[in-house]
């Protein structure tokens, strides 16, 4: 009998800034300049203020169902800041910090969740190729693979980054995208936002694997785990993945460990299924608090500057809210106007009918 090991794997985990705001590893180059860290910090604060505002708007009947991303701001901030301007983002629906960083207007995000397709017609040319928010779970990973294939066929040195949640890794689309990305060595970075919950289903009922990252190993993709509440290590790992993609070295999978500190959406009540003690423990790992502590410890941030930025961020958000609330509803014919490039004559009767409502 011939018996030998024909494949084996290991998955590495990285952390640089621990939950108390202490460095446990050497800082990567970008993080040695405090200005870069302050920029990341300020953006996460802005995203959290935006999120709280959106939830408040929903509670007062001024916004539809909204999926907050409380506690997960570091991952999409890190990813978006690691991307080059002409890279392409294929998000899921909890990457608010990332869209804003890339150049999507906050009022556009509100318009989308406020029931208007205008919210996915991004005005900023910087994001004209980015995909809109994707609701059907994991389906965006295949779109990302298609875009990455287009970039590769056209020999453009650009990368695609796609986000997915822990629940999304159970879907076939995700495996199919990983598999194809591996076969074609696509310039594609998968980032798993592992917040431990898919609505009410905890991670251990989603998978029996030790990590989600190892799902990429089967596709021969560079796969690793990072502390997703550490914006520094998350940005470091994603920057390396983007660099590999640009260099033609193929796809990567980064599993970023975080925690959904909020309900799934404003229509959800996590107290129905989640032990409150768990939230207390997870809140002590908050990504914003720990970076703030670190910046204070190196005398780069203090309570006055924090107050000043809170006020400035609030006014940016309030301004966006005002723009959102002042945006007129689309004409009724808009239902037809973008269905096809030109309206088929078969739809003319219905088009005329909607105008008489």
């Amino acid at each position: 009998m011939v018996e030998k090991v024909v494949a084996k794997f290991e998955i590495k985990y990285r952390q640089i800034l621990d939950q108390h705001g202490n460095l446990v590893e050497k800082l990567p180059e970008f993080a040695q300049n405090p200005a870069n860290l302050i920029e990341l910090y300020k953006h996460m604060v802005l995203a959290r203020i935006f999120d709280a505002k959106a939830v408040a708007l929903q509670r007062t009947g001024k916004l539809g169902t909204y999926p907050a991303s409380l506690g997960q701001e570091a991952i999409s901030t890190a990813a978006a800041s690691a991307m080059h301007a002409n890279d392409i983002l294929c998000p899921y629906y909890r990457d608010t910090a990332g869209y804003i960083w890339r150049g999507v207007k906050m009022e556009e995000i509100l318009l989308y969740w406020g029931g208007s397709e205008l919210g996915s017609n991004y005005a900023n040319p910087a994001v004209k190729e980015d995909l809109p928010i994707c609701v059907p779970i994991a389906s965006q990973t295949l779109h990302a693979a298609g875009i990455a294939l287009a970039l590769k066929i056209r020999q453009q040195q650009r990368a695609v980054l796609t986000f997915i949640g822990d629940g999304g890794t159970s879907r076939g689309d995700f495996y199919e995208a990983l598999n194809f990305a591996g076969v074609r060595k696509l310039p594609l970075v998968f980032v798993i936002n592992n917040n431990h919950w898919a609505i009410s289903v905890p991670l251990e009922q989603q998978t029996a694997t030790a990590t989600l990252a190892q799902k990429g190993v089967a596709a021969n993709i560079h796969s690793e785990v990072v502390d997703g509440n550490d914006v520094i290590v998350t940005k470091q790992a994603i920057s390396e993945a983007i660099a590999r993609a640009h260099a033609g070295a193929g796809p990567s999978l980064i599993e970023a460990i975080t925690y959904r500190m909020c309900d799934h959406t404003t229509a959800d009540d996590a107290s129905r299924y989640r032990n409150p003690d768990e939230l207390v423990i997870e809140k002590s790992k908050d990504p914003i608090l720990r970076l703030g502590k670190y910046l204070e410890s190196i005398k780069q941030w203090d309570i006055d500057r924090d107050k000043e930025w809170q006020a400035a961020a609030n006014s940016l958000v309030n301004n966006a809210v005002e723009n959102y609330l002042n945006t007129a509803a689309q004409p009724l014919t808009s239902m037809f106007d973008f269905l096809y490039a030109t309206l088929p004559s078969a739809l003319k009767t219905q088009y005329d009918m909607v105008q008489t409502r």
Partner: protein
Amino acid sequence: MTAITLIEAINQALDYELNADPNVIIFGEDVGVDGGVFRATVGLLDKYGTDRVIDTPLSENLIAGLSVGLGTQGIKAIAEFQFMGFLYAGLDQIISHVSRMRNRTRGRLSCPIVMRTPYGGGIHAPEHHSESTEALLAHIPGLRVVIPSSPAMGYGLLLAAIRDPDPVIFLEPTRIYRLVKEEVNNDGTALPLDVCYVLRDGTDVTLVSWGAMLHETLKAADTLAQQGIQAAVIDVATIKPLDMATIISSVQKTGRCVIIHEAARTCGVGAEIAANLAEFALTSLLAPIKRVTGYDTIMPLYQLEDHYMPHENDILQAVHEVMEYA
């Protein structure tokens, strides 16, 4: 000009457009070295290379999802699904993304792709290889669903589908892939989408059909002519969006209509046509609208296949009933 089959016409149209437009690519299972299981893509890999004729892993949902990403980049992706029965695995992508990318981004992004698939019965294929579920796709807003009935229609409609800025599902009737030959000018001329084609004028009854069933329908029209009944024959060609104007205009002349399709009867495209005639041409009707269709059963395995599919005799019987009515 030489006479060619439908499958050869498909191949010529693909070749023509790959050559004419560098944004066109082909992908799917076995489309490369093998040239497709029906040989629709034969020779194209050698001519255009592995970046433009791409063999994918065996996953129809992957093929559907990739086409969304390719489409948003302005690539005219022509996806081949090996058989219609396997396209179902990609329906989530087709319904949730392919059909609505333009609409949900208010025109910022679009999906100018073609999804080709062999469909229908009549070739004694294995289970799941003879599906005729075009009505499922025709129900989806934002799609075009196009079905050729001959080599010339296959060539011209496929070119139009590729050049169309929106997603087109292109259903190729396997039964007529090699059934007839016809002279087709390989000059890149497309045929219009969104219109029905009047294949034959007539004054007594309007026969409406598409795809492989048109061959039974045309045979029936010949027989009827010998019996002194002049049947108009309409090839719907694009079943979504549906050109009712042409059908109504014919029925206004004939006063009678028989709709023939291979798909199951209930909620088939024939029901949509009949409903429109009832709504917009009622006063022209001299007799009830009749449908000659497959049964509301699962397509049987091939021993009984022939008894599922409508035949010339079924059409003749239906026509005689409407003629005798008034």
